[in-house]
């Protein structure tokens, strides 16, 4: 109990004094996960909308696979990306392994199915409501998909926040492809794991507090966005 309370006091000090090491780790974590969320949105939003609106052979199977991929274990993603980016791998020539770039790739792979699958569900629900009207107005499949993406933008903002939350909270993938190198690829989750095993609880707890604060902020932002959009746009 004493260890916990002492560690909490020390952790609070690190946070309130903007400890340089802590800030660097938090900034890197945000940079990696925000970039991964950007790329996952770039691929996942149109993919989800296309599957929702399009009709093609194998679509039901694709939906099942996409939904299943939402539960991808981070360590498996890390292993696959590691093999791809390792010097002997097909993408080894890019020299990304053990860099933030590799961590971005891994997190992008991890959360793209989440964003695509949730987007598909949201757009499919909207398509059920809009289909006759948009078809009547002469919207083709791609135009309808773009229209639905825009019209469901506030729900999709929540999806992006969910993807970002998943990315910033995972540890397995970035640990494998980043290597947890101090000052280079050490992010919040990998630091927490490392410092806990070393017994340096204040830094681990401080990062844990920041991580929980970020998750709370994300959820508050998602809730506020939904409520504001409902009141403003119906």
């Amino acid at each position, binding site marked *: 109990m004493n260890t916990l309370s002492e560690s909490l006091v020390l952790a609070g000090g690190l946070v309130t004094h903007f400890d340089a090491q802590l800030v660097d780790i938090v900034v890197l974590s945000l940079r990696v996960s925000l970039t991964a969320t950007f790329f996952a949105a770039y691929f996942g939003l149109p993919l989800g909308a296309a599957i929702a609106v399009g009709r093609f052979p194998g679509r039901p199977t694709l939906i099942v696979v996409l939904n299943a991929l939402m539960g991808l274990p981070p360590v498996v993603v890390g292993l696959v990306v590691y093999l791809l980016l390792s010097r002997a791998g097909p993408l080894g020539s890019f020299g990304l392994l053990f860099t933030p770039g590799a961590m971005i790739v891994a997190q992008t792979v991890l959360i793209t199915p989440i964003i695509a699958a949730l987007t598909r569900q949201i757009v499919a629900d909207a398509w059920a*409501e*809009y289909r*006759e*009207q948009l*078809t*009547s*107005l*002469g*919207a083709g499949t791609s*135009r309808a998909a773009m*229209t639905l993406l*825009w*019209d469901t*933008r506030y729900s999709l903002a929540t999806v992006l926040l969910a993807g970002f939350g998943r990315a910033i909270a995972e540890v397995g993938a970035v640990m494998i492809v980043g290597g947890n190198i101090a000052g280079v690829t050490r992010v919040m989750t990998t630091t927490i794991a490392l410092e806990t095993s070393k017994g340096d609880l204040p830094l681990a707890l401080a990062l844990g507090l920041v991580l929980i604060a970020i998750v709370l902020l994300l959820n508050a932002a998602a809730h506020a966005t939904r409520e504001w959009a409902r009141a*403003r*746009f*119906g």
Partner: protein
Amino acid sequence: MAEYATGLPIRLDHVSAAPGGVPVLEGIDLVVEAGGRTVLLGPNGAGKSTLLRVLHGLIPPSAGSVVWGYASTRPPGQAMVFQRPVLLRRSAADNVRYALDLAGVIGSEADARIAEALDEVGLRALAARPARVLSGGEQQKLAFARVWALRPEVLFLDEPTASLDPAAARSVEQIIADIHARGTTIVMTTHNLVQAKRLADDVLFLHAGSITERTSAREFFTAPRSPEAAAFLEGERL
């Protein structure tokens, strides 16, 4: 004046339709000529809404053929207003602009049409208001503004006043009359016989997926030819 003149008459030749695998229409022969106001009447489940969607190309026939003018695919120049209007999450004016953009009308021409259309339905003051927070009656009027701006050759209406209060319904009826006065052919369904008397040039009566008669509105309401139509009118009177 309608913008296009390519999709009429609409000819249905032995058309059957089974949306979702459920047979609804059977052996429909029908020609919709330019200029008229045709009201589809019939009991629930008779196939009125399905027939409207087949005419508009939203539901493909399971048998038979549909020809719009000389085309076997739906040409531009058609529009439809549904019982529950589907509006996009953007302003009232931008809902009209979206429809015009799909029709290839952009720039100052689109601006002029949007202003004219919103004026016509009495929503000019609400142009910037998000469409989905408008009242039910205002939303339906906005759906008609979209149609007004498109200047369709033929307009399909699926019970357009069913969800409206009497005042809003009367207002929508006037808009329909104005649209028709500009040269747009009207094909609509309704359960309101008084409204049908006010709006119809001719009546097409459906029963169990088949057309049992098509006559002028005056003749239909005074001396229906088919026993099904007579029973329907009798039931309505009761």
